[in-house]
Structures are given as C-alpha cells and as structure tokens.
C-alpha cells in the first residue's frame, strides 16, 4: 500500500475535507503561504484561496475563540495551533467556552469545530513547546480529544473530527511528523470514540498512543520470546473507549498504561483505575502506569531523553507485572 508521512496524511485530510464541504475552512498562524508549522498546509491556500485558508494574527484565543462562534454560525472551522502547549493560552476558551456552551444551552448550540495541534516531546523545544495536553483537555466534559499514532490514524481521525458535530481537539505528535506508514488511496474515515487493538497478544495489555505506541511496539518485540503483548491504541482520549481495554484485560489479566502526559492526574491513572475498578478480579498483577514523572520537559537532550519514557522503561514496566 502507498506510504505517506504524518504531515502528508494531515494535508491530504485537510485537502479532501476542504474539497468536499464548502463550509469547512482552515485558520491559524502561518497556514497560508508559509504552509503550516510542519508543512501540513502547504499548497492549500493556492487551491482554496485566502478566504478558506486564513492566516491569523498571533493569538490562540482569537484562533479557537473565533472558531467557536463560526461553528455556531454554520461553518466547520479547522483551527490550527502551532504547538499543543498553546492551548493553555486559550485555556478559558477550551475549558469554559468551547467545552461548555453546547451543554449550557441545553443542546441548542452546536459547535462542529476542530482544533488541530502537534503535541508531545522529543524535538528539543523546551518546557513550553513539548507538552502532551490530552489529560487536562480530555478532563473537560464537552470536548472530544483525539491523538494520532500513525499517518493512517492522523488522516482518518482528522477527517472524522471535521465531520463530527462536537468540538474535537486532534493531536498529532511532533516527533512523528516525518514518520511514514500505509495510507490507502481510497478515501476513508476512522470512528471517533473507539480504541483499536493494534497488536494481538495473550499475556499483558499495553495501552499506548503516539510516540510511546511505537516504543511499546519495540518493547513488545524485545520481549516477544517470553511475553505475548497485546497493544491497545485508544485513539480517542475523551470520551474513552474503556470497554475495548477491559476486554483485552479480561483476556490477558495484566495491564500497563503508557502515555506521555505527566502521571499526576494524567491519562494513565484514570485508565488504570477504571480497569482496577471494573476488572479487579480479572487482574493477576497490579496495573502499572508509565509517563512523565511530574516534571516539565527540559530542553537539554540528555534531560529530555531522561523524562520521556524510553523503550527500556516500558520493557521494565511490562516485566514488573510478571
């Protein structure tokens, strides 16, 4: 099958949705002639014009705040943030406005908007350009939060996000932008709100996404002789498809949750606790969590590599449940 990298997959998704639905438009810093922070909007302004591919002034409050209004006014905005960390600069818009206006209105308002941003660490960009933000945004009832692991995911999930009638936050991973993978030529979408078993196994369930999914695959390969690892990719972090994970744990009896969010009130603990609650008697070992150990992301390569869970840390965590 054809291979694309993540940037190409995202661009194709945007292109197809802009083509398909004239209420879709794209806005963000430098999405026009510049072509997007990672090249993901290259060429789109030439094809769709400056009305539908809009450079914005430098303000994330403006970018996602206006998108909320535009979505209520009948458009389907795709609002881009250059780094997911900047969601914090529009914390109010994410937490109090975008997530809540449809609920507050008793369902009268519909906000079919998408925010697209690259998250995660690994490019030596320091504490304010390296965060994984799906825990604190996924914590806000009213937001759909999606994380892409492969180019296939990135394209399929982004297209669904644009078509969905809820506000959806789509997170690509910066360190996977050049990562290649199979993407069908034929148009497709992927379901939101559904986890997928990416690798079947018998002995332990590893839940992982984005860059740490790929490290978890490496860990599984490393351990393949001794342990049969099943890997579940949640794809959507909010709402979370707990059932697919639970089903896997009912089979394997063991759970390791791996993610790049800081551990305290991060994604890992919630996932582990849901399983500990619902599948307590299926578990043969304590559920383990792996993540950033409650530090900001430091700049220096030595330090950054220390705080982002390595393949060997994942191996250790898997081994610790046997």
């Amino acid at each position, binding site marked *: 099958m054809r291979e694309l990298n993540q940037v190409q997959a995202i661009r194709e998704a945007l292109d197809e949705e802009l083509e398909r639905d004239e209420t879709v438009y794209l806005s963000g810093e430098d999405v026009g002639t510049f072509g997007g922070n990672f090249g993901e909007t290259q060429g789109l302004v030439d094809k769709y014009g400056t009305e539908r591919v809009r450079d914005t002034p430098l303000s994330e409050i403006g970018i996602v705040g206006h998108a*909320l*209004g535009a979505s209520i*006014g009948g458009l389907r905005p795709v609002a881009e943030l250059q780094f997911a960390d900047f969601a914090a600069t529009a914390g109010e818009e994410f937490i109090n406005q975008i997530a809540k206006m449809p609920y507050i209105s008793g369902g*009268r308002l519909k906000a079919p908007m998408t925010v697209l941003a690259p998250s995660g660490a690994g490019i030596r960009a320091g504490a304010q350009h390296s965060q994984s933000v799906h825990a604190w945004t996924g914590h806000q009832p009213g937001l759909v939060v999606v994380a892409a692991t492969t180019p296939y995911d990135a394209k399929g999930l982004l297209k669904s996000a644009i078509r969905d009638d809820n506000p959806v936050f789509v997170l690509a991973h910066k360190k996977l932008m050049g990562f290649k993978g199979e993407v069908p030529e034929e148009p497709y979408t992927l379901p939101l709100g559904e986890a997928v078993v990416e690798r079947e196994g018998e002995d332990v369930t590893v839940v992982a996404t984005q860059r740490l999914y790929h490290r978890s695959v490496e860990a599984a390969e490393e351990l393949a002789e001794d342990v049969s690892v099943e890997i579940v990719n949640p794809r959507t972090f909010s709402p979370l498809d707990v059932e697919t994970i639970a089903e896997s744990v009912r089979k394997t009896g063991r759970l390791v949750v791996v993610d790049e969010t800081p551990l305290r009130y991060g994604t890992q603990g919630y996932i582990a606790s849901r399983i500990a609650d619902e599948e307590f008697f299926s578990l043969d070992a304590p559920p383990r969590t792996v993540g950033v150990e409650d530090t900001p992301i430091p700049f220096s390569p030595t330090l950054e590599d220390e705080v982002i869970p390595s393949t060997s840390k994942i191996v250790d965590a898997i081994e610790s449940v046997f």
Partner: protein
Amino acid sequence: MVSDTNPHFEDVDAETVDELLEQMVRIRRFEEGVLDEFSEGSVPGFVHLCHGHEASHAGMGVAMQPDDWLAVGGSRLHGQYIVKGVPFDEIMAELFGKATGPNGGKGGSMHLADVDRHLYGHAATIGSGQNPAAGLALAQQMRETGNVVLSTIGDGGTSRGSFHTALVFAAAWNLPVVYIIENNGFAISYSTQQQVGIDSLADYGKPLNIPSYSIDGSDPVAVYETISEAITRAREGGGPTLVESRVTRLRGHFEGDKQAYRTEEEARESNAERDPVTNFQERVIEAGHITAEAYDALVDEIDDEVGAAIQFAKDSPDPAPSTAYEDVLRLPLYGQGEGDA
C-alpha cells in the same frame, strides 16, 4: 448623567419611539418581577439586574433585525434577552431553572441561549464572548447572510485582553460586528475608566482604525441611531464598529451587594437623575407623544405579562435529573459504532 438632549426623539419616527419606550418598560417591569421573586427565594443562585441599562438595551434591540445575532456580555443580561425577542415566559422559566426554559434549566440567568432567535448566549466569564462574536461575524461574512453580529461587554470586561484580541481579528478581517461597551462606571466595585485612566473606553478602537463612538447610553434614541449606523456600515461591508454606551448602574452589582464602595448620596442621586426609564417616560409624555393614561395602561399590560411569566415559571416542572447527563456531547460521535471504514 442623562444628557439634556435626551430624548431627542424628534429625529426618529413615532413608531420607533413607541418601540423604544415599550422595550424599556418591558425590561424594567420584568426586572422588578425578578427582584420580587428573588427576594422571596424563588430564583436560585444570584441575579444581576438591568436597572439603568434599559435605554442602552432598547436602543440596540430596536436597531437590530431579527436575523442579526446578539452575543450577550457584561452582567446586565435579562434586558438583552428581552430585546432579542425571547418571551418573558421562557426567560423566567430559565431563571427559575425549570424544564420549560429555552435551555432546560442548564443555563439560568447568566446563560440564556436561543439559536433560533440568533441569541448566542453569554460567557459568564466576563469578556470571553467577544472572540466567538467575531467568529459568528465571520460566518455571516463567508456565508453572505447579510446579517450583522452585536456583542456587548461591560467596562470591567475591557481590561481582559481577549477583548482586544477580538478587536484585532475584527479589524484584520473587516468583520460585520458591532462591539458595544456598556460603561456603567463599575466592575462590581472597581471604577475601570477612572482607575485605569482612560478618557473614553471607545478609544480602544482607535489604534486599529475601527470607527469608535462614545454615546449617552441613557438616551435610547442616541443608542438606536448610533447602533443603526454601525449595523448599516457592517451590513454594507464596512467592517466593525466600537461603541461606548455610557450608562448608570442604578442598583448593586448583584442583589445583596451592600455597595460600601459607593456613597449613599451617589446612589440616591443616580436614581433620581439618571434613571433612563422615568426620564424617557416623562419626556415622551411631556412631548405629547403618549398620554399618561396610555403609558399607565402599557405598564399594566406588561405587568400582567410579567405576572403570567412568573406563574408559568412556578407551574413549570423541574427538569428531570437524568437530563443532567444529556447535551454534553452529540452522540454517536462520527463513525462511532461503525468500525474502521
């Protein structure tokens, strides 16, 4: 202070004067009803009343077309819902938290939204509604609906940077939006204009070359005329306008506010001299536009409507507890339940 020329209703046709008067009285009488009910404990939470903002709300409401959008700001909200055409029954039911409110009791006083009437609703986090208003305006522009968006904010709210960002986007994209700062001299107890040291809050539009006006917001005709002009400009592609509407907050910030930060004299004075409703009423009667009897009849009629709305709200059922879990997300999500396609 109500200006000498208030109302200079000679400039506008009689029908418009009627409408302005009626809207102002509707707001005042509605709020009096809310006050009674709040005092008796029927309205949950806290309420902020519109006393003193009636001319500003009425002028803006009468200037709008039904399909123009309103994104409500500041804390003087009910009057804005009223002039956007939401019936008393519905507003009152929402204030009471009843199932029959437009938002099924999820919103309440601070959050009434009515999409069919193009009422966006309110960011109760003061100053967070202006960027959504810009986006609504972009939707009008791109979809070529011909509609304009109005967005109000209090003087206090202008200290939040999100307001300035909204002006930047409105200017950059030449959006059909009218921002109205209702400057009542207070953000709860803080005198923004004085303490921050700005001559007129309309000045905030000037760096961006946004047409900016400061008007006597206690004069419904002045408001009506300025906003009408701004709406026309926006509708014709002339972009955004910023209007400072100078008003008086006749009561406390919320009901129960002891106003220790305001002298008693000041509060009394303002009631006498700055009340836009009694002022407009007196002048229209004096000018022979309406008789005192006709005015009283109007008040009675509206009071009946308020009374009926209160009764409606009281008689309405509470929302079913299970509805608390609805409207968080529209389900199923896209593709959910269908597997990888």
